[in-house]
């Protein structure tokens, strides 16, 4: 089932990313419908694709986006909120970008060279790139941005992503940037597809100071126009854009509409062109609404599960953790909680990224095995524990379903609802033990696996420590050989599944309801919608 999803999904995404027109899934369906059922026609698919190719992007129009939450800053060096990134991807370029399978693609950096010892990475920048304020985006500007993040005095939240491996950066020519690494680090480029990679105008930064976050200046396809807090951010096409493919849209307006039901309604009424995070209950209605379509990614790069302290009783007992892992009916979660819009998760890596392991084996629902393991763990007569969750409707629903499922193996849960913004702090402070959790993938396997599983890492909130995993993580990020890395991460995946510091439950699908006029939307597994390359059919 997951493999099938993967094929459909990769087909869908290949179709719409990058911006060159290729055959879309819709085109294929249309072709096979038009051609009848004859298999012989399949071999002509490539030829027919040209005949049925969709029209080229049409210029013009303002894309009206329903934003989930307001931005707090448009300064990428201080951004932590997810809601800010869709706007930043329009205003800024990153040093390199991520494809829908998390491959690295050129952006401001057009090519890169890694030295034999893996300690020096030389990036060649695109020539003749200008910021929206007219200043030049050259190697010095890139260096200024990286130095800013690395300067401890600036307290950039991005510091932690670069400091562990980057010792310094030099501009060795107008378009050549040399990065000096503390140790070989294979996730190097992937880090620059995310927030540390956004390049801002140093001149504008110096001009606006602390107010730069309200007056952002980048090199992106769109330049900032205005931001009315809690209402909207608008950007307009930047005609001096350096790239060959310019924006088709005249502009984008991100309107903040916090209530999902209202966002969904506004797409149906045509007040919005596109939004994300719909109310799951609305999706069926949206799909049936005239002039509306829903583009989904299933599985997504966002997993839900449970976590506990593996160094504290009662969960310092591996048999107990595995018993509970066997007692969870993931299919029922997908069916009941997600209404079928998601996929079961057996481990931390979904099938959509290159380091996914086909061989990793997770826990299937097996109540008998669960009871047997409970007995082995010393809980023949069952077991009671507190389960903490965010007190949101979905958080509570998750907890209640888990409570009902585990009752079947004599595990009794007391639900402890916690304010969502407190939950993670309580986990870190060890005020709670067993909790619901969710994380989104980074563009490199080392990103999430290291912070969650490396002994003593700042985001290792389960107390997990396995020398084998630590060693494998160190090996995985010190080689630039893709195949070697893939096999290392497959071993890590299997080990953490078996050790069960987390039990993975599902990947909810990512859904974007939009008007049928919106073309070329594609999800990236980091779940951040990019709107800059879309266009509107007239």
């Amino acid at each position, binding site marked *: 089932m997951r493999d099938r999803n993967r094929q459909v999904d990769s087909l869908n995404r290949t179709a719409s990313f990058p911006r060159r027109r290729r055959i879309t899934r819709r085109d294929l369906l249309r072709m096979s419908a038009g051609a009848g059922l004859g298999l012989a026609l399949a071999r002509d698919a490539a030829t027919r694709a040209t005949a049925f190719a969709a029209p080229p992007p049409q210029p013009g129009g303002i894309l009206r986006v329903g934003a989930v939450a307001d931005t707090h800053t448009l300064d990428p060096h201080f951004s932590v909120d997810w809601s800010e990134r869709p706007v930043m991807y329009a205003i800024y370029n990153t040093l390199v970008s991520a494809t829908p399978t998390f491959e690295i693609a050129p952006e401001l950096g057009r090519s890169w060279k890694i030295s034999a010892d893996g300690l020096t990475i030389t990036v060649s920048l695109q020539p003749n790139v200008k910021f929206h304020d007219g200043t030049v985006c050259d190697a010095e500007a890139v260096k200024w941005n990286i130095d800013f993040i690395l300067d401890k005095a600036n307290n950039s939240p991005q510091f932690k992503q670069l400091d562990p491996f980057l010792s310094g950066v030099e501009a060795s020519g107008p378009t050549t940037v040399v990065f000096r690494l503390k140790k070989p680090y294979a996730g190097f480029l992937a880090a620059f597809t995310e927030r540390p990679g956004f390049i801002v105008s140093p001149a504008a930064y110096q001009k606006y100071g602390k*107010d730069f976050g309200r007056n952002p200046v980048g090199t992106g396809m769109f330049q900032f126009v205005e931001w009315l807090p809690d209402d909207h951010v608008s950007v307009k096409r930047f005609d001096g854009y350096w790239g060959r493919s310019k924006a088709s849209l005249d502009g984008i307006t991100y309107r903040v509409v916090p209530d999902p039901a209202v966002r969904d309604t506004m797409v149906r009424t045509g007040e919005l062109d596109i939004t994300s995070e719909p109310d799951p209950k609305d999706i069926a209605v949206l799909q049936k609404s005239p002039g509306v379509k829903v583009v989904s990614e299933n599985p997504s790069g966002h997993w839900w599960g449970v976590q506990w302290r593996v160094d504290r009783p009662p969960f310092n007992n591996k048999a107990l953790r595995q018993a509970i892992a066997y007692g969870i009916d993931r299919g029922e979660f997908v069916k009941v909680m997600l209404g079928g819009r998601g996929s079961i998760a057996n481990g931390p890596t979904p099938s959509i990224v290159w380091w996914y392991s086909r061989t990793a084996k997770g826990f299937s629902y097996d109540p008998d095995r669960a009871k047997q393991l409970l007995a082995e763990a010393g809980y023949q007569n069952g077991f009671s524990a507190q389960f903490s969750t965010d007190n949101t409707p979905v958080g509570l629903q998750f907890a209640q379903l888990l409570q009902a499922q585990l009752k079947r193996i004599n595990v009794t849960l007391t639900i402890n609802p916690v304010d969502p*913004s407190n939950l993670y702090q309580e986990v870190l402070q060890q005020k709670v033990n067993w909790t619901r959790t969710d994380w989104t993938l980074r563009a490199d396997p080392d990103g999430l696996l290291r912070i969650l599983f490396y002994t003593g890492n700042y985001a290792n909130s389960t107390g997990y420590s396995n020398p084998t995993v630590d060693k494998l993580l160190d090996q995985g990020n010190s080689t630039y050989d893709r195949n070697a890395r893939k096999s290392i991460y497959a071993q890590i995946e299997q080990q953490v599944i078996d050790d069960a510091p987390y039990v993975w439950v599902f990947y909810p699908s990512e859904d974007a309801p939009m008007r049928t006029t919106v073309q070329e939307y594609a999800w990236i597994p980091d779940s951040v919608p990019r709107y800059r390359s879309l266009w509107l059919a007239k």
Partner: protein
Amino acid sequence: MWRYIVARVAAVVPMIVLVTMAVFWLLHGLLGDPTLLILGRDADPQTAQRLRHELGLDRPLDVQYLDWVSHAFRGDLGRSLRTHEPVAQAMRERALPTAELTILSMGLAAAGALVLGSVAAVWYGSLADFGVSSFCVVGVTLPNFLLGITLILVFALTLRWLPSGGFVSPLNNLGANLRVMILPVLTLSVAYVGILALVLKSSLRATLGAPYVQTARAKGIAERRVLVRHAVRNSLIPLLSVLGIEFGRLFGGAVVTETVFALPGVGRLLVDSILGRDFPVVQAVVASMTCGVLFVNLLVDLSYAWLDPRVSYD
């Protein structure tokens, strides 16, 4: 009367000190540290500690509070911890939608209550009274997020008469502004129409039976004049008392209404800042809301004297 006003205004100061102090301790004591929210949940401890020190969050709470108070008295409300935006500017930008929403809703609620409460009292026991009372009870009990969504489904999605949400400044386009404000104002005011109309109904019923109303009728004054000049006016005092008290609650309703209708108001700023532990913003919004509620209650108290000449503040 001036002495009364001065005394009341002076009493506002300790009230604000008490409220902000309570908010300060609650936020810091119960919710804790904002640095993880500023740096992201995967923040490293060293950066978090540096930031905590830089923001002065590692000082004792009383020092932090006194520091805030001394700056506030000099007109400096500080900058938001998350956006670095000056707090006064953040509030100024969001004041208009909230002011318009609350004033129009209170106005509509008071006007609606006057009509409905009078109808129910004058025709007490009739079908009209039953209808008004039922409407009021439904209005009071209906959660306003539900009412808001229902109004959007009917008027925006099905009939396509009005927009679902958003805000247009009345200074830019008054017509468009009123169009977007119709549904939020209706949503917020329905509960208050209900409460105020029921209060007016019972108060007016008592007044209509009072000897001075009988006397007025006996003098041959037209019934309408008896009702408007003598009965309603004298029944307004309980209505205004409730209105003053309810004004504080109106802000709570405004938060929900602003969220449903995507209005960029102070209510949403407050909730967002509480969730983000943005202490300077929360403090300033709470202090100004307290001022607003105390000011409205002062106006209510002063209006007693205007409505009933027997009341004097001298």
